[in-house]
């Protein structure tokens, strides 16, 4: 529907009056979407809280089996990716197409790096049987460690899925940036993708201490 009509900017959809209205509408929509994401993750965080309250010793004993080093590396990777994302938005706002593309590419790279680290963590856990309740086979941990590891997989798995979605979204934005869709007059998609990416980062910032740094 965004076909050009004479004096119309190409990106302006027909049902909006102005680029400003379109931009503020899509940003509000994005924030609302993020609000529902927060509540979505809120549920699983509450579950974590309740179960940790029910099994404090288990959580303490089981968390030692997570690899803090890998978790820390991933934390650094994600925070850096948030920086490159922010720089990418800035570059789009200042008409710097080359830098926009570069920064988006870097962000995607970091996101992939995060998943690679996660893959090594997961495969190790699965290998030693630290998995969800029904197939849990590791021994020697006090309490009901399967609950901790179930939560670990549920929470980081859900987060990992969001990272994956982020990569897809960022790749799409990257493609559009290369095509030259964005300028100082129109950069909302970059900004919105950035907002999403920051939220994904933020959730990890909570997951890391809750799971890896119980003590």
């Amino acid at each position, binding site marked *: *529907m965004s*076909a050009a*009509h*004479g*004096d*119309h900017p190409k990106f*302006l*959809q*027909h*049902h909006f*009056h*102005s680029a400003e*209205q379109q931009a*503020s*509408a*899509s940003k*509000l*929509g994005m924030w*609302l*979407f993020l*609000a*529902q*994401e927060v*509540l*979505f*993750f*809120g*549920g*699983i965080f*509450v*579950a974590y809280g*309740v*179960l940790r309250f*029910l*099994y404090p010793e288990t959580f303490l004993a089981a968390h030692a089996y997570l690899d803090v080093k890998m978790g820390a590396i991933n934390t650094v990777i994600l925070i850096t990716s948030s920086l490159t994302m922010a720089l990418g938005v800035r570059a789009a706002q200042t008409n710097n197409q080359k830098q926009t593309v570069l920064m988006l590419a870097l962000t995607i790279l970091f996101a992939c790096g995060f998943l690679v680290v996660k893959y090594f963590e997961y495969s190790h856990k699965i290998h030693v049987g630290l998995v*969800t*309740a*029904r*197939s849990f086979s590791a021994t020697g941990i006090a309490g*009901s460690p*399967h*609950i901790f590891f*179930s*939560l670990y*997989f*549920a929470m980081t798995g*859900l987060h990992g899925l969001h990272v994956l979605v982020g990569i897809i979204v960022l790749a799409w934005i990257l493609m559009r940036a290369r095509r030259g869709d964005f300028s100082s007059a129109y950069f909302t998609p970059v900004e919105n993708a950035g907002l999403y990416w920051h939220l994904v980062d933020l959730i990890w910032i909570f997951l890391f201490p809750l799971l890896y740094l119980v003590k």
Partner: protein
Amino acid sequence: MATVTTANGHASEHHEVGSNYLNARKGVLSWLFTLDHKRIGVMYLAGTLFFFMIGGILALLVRTELLTPAGDLFQGDTYNRVFTLHGAIMVFIFIIPSVPAALGNFVLPLMLGTKDVAFPRINLLSFWIWMLGTAFLLYSIIAGSVDTGWTFYTPYSSDPQVGSQAGSAIIWALMGVFILGFSSILTGVNFITTVHKMRAPGMTWTKMPLFIWGIYATAVIQVLATPVLAITLLLLTIERTLGIGIFDPALGGDPVLFQHFFWFYSHPAVYIMILPGMAIISELVTVHSKKNIFGYKPIAYSSMAIAIISFLVWGHHMFTSGQSELASTVFSALTFAVAVPTAIKVFSWVATLYKGSISLNTPMLYCLSFLFLFTIGGLTGLFCSTLATDIHIHDTYFVVAHFHYVMMGGTVIAFLGGLHHWWPKMTGRWYNENWGRFAAALVFIGFNVTFFSQFVLGSQGMPRRYHTYHSASPDLKAIFTKWHQVSTVGSYILAAGLFITLFYLLHSLFRGKKVAEKNPWGAKSLEWLTETPPIEHNFHEEPVCLHGPYDYDEISPDGQGAGADEDDDSPLYLDKKTEAKKAEEPKAEEKKAEEKKAEEPKAEEKKAEEKKAEEKKAEEPKAEAKKAEAKKAEETKAEEKKAEAKAEAKSDDEADKDKK
């Protein structure tokens, strides 16, 4: 406000005579891939009404089984599946999308005076997701059918070894509801953004129709509550498949946690269902009594209050599930608090009717039905929120009757009222008014016979979700049998009323009298300003909102006629381009008139409008500076359009000559 004008490229579409959103494009694909909120609304309407019928037929099966104390129609397992399916379809597939996604989609942008919702693609996506979720939920029937009840309580739903849950049916159903939730969230995001960003110039928050307020409050709940259900069902699915020990007590989980999670969504969801119903009533009660709403702001703000309180009362579903007494007491007190904003609404509606010019047409009959039924539903809610009485009536037919009075007697009745109210605008056809009234009466009677008797059953101790009823005492059994039979007969009357409605509405689509006027009810909100049925882009030119949505000055509270402060019968909203066009383009006007075969009323309208336009001009100096500026901009625009229109008229004439 109006900086960039409407796209010139669309102008030609606007000018096509007799073109509307229904016939502007043809073919099934033009519907399935449409971005037009009106078409999406109509598709939602068709879909939800279809599943209303399916869910209703399942309810009839349940009622028929209960005619006799013995289980002669179904085995217990089948009965459980039937009532689960009835509940799940009615709640997740029908009621939740019915008013917001079906009627709301159609009406909301029109009421706001905008061309579409903020995100038309997401709007279409939400409909597709709704179909996908529905498909999943229906597939669960083939996969073995769920018998947990629509609430999917753990541990029954989480244990793969129990009963009919052994199959994969429950997973399909959970995923179906999970997916349906996304559809609901997307609709909510879309509507909130649309209300915030897309209102017509001059439409402040307190000049919005109350329908918008209700839908807005609903959308807030949809966005904030539904994701909690999503994560809950997702966790339950993982619990079922991999075993994570969150809900399953056998693995160390807490089944009551599931109830907390579930009701954290599903109680607000009750208000996702009723707030849109209330929103519709706020419209019907003014339009069909030709009287300004009593207490605009209290009604608007009470919608928001209900939305907020709705998040704080979920524990009243769990008084008997072992939560702490303190928690129960707090939840009980908070639940009573819901009665305050709700009562504000009901009193305001009744006060609106007082000394109004009430037309007892079909929409108004549904509106009055709502006032009775919803009040009964609301007041019996107080019995349930009182801790001591709730222990007695918990899980009995009293609760069943209570929530049917609110959900069906409230939301569905309001939905039917709204459907009849906007039907002429949506379809351009009149339904048969006499059949409409008759059916409304049947629905009202049938509903009360069906569900009032269940209050009696419940108070006598008849538990819900049983397919047989054998009591130790023969007296009690006789009482149960009698009232169950009354209830079942009532359900047949109710069904008769609803099927009659279905038939005359379908009939009206093909044989109904065409709606000649834009505003058959004489309403004041913007959706009545456009053509009937609306043109593809809603308005010829963006309307400007100058007055409140219910400024009926024919009748004022003291019976004195026009309000003193307002300029008599000036139009409340102006569709400027149309006016300009009509004044300056008699040729095109005549052509239109010829085709519509309605010359005389048109001419009269034209005169009236010219008169209005004059008055409008006289009024201008009064307007604030800002408004004046906006108008100026629009006038120049109108002139440009005029030139265009003339050019077009010429080419039209030439085309005509060519044809000849």
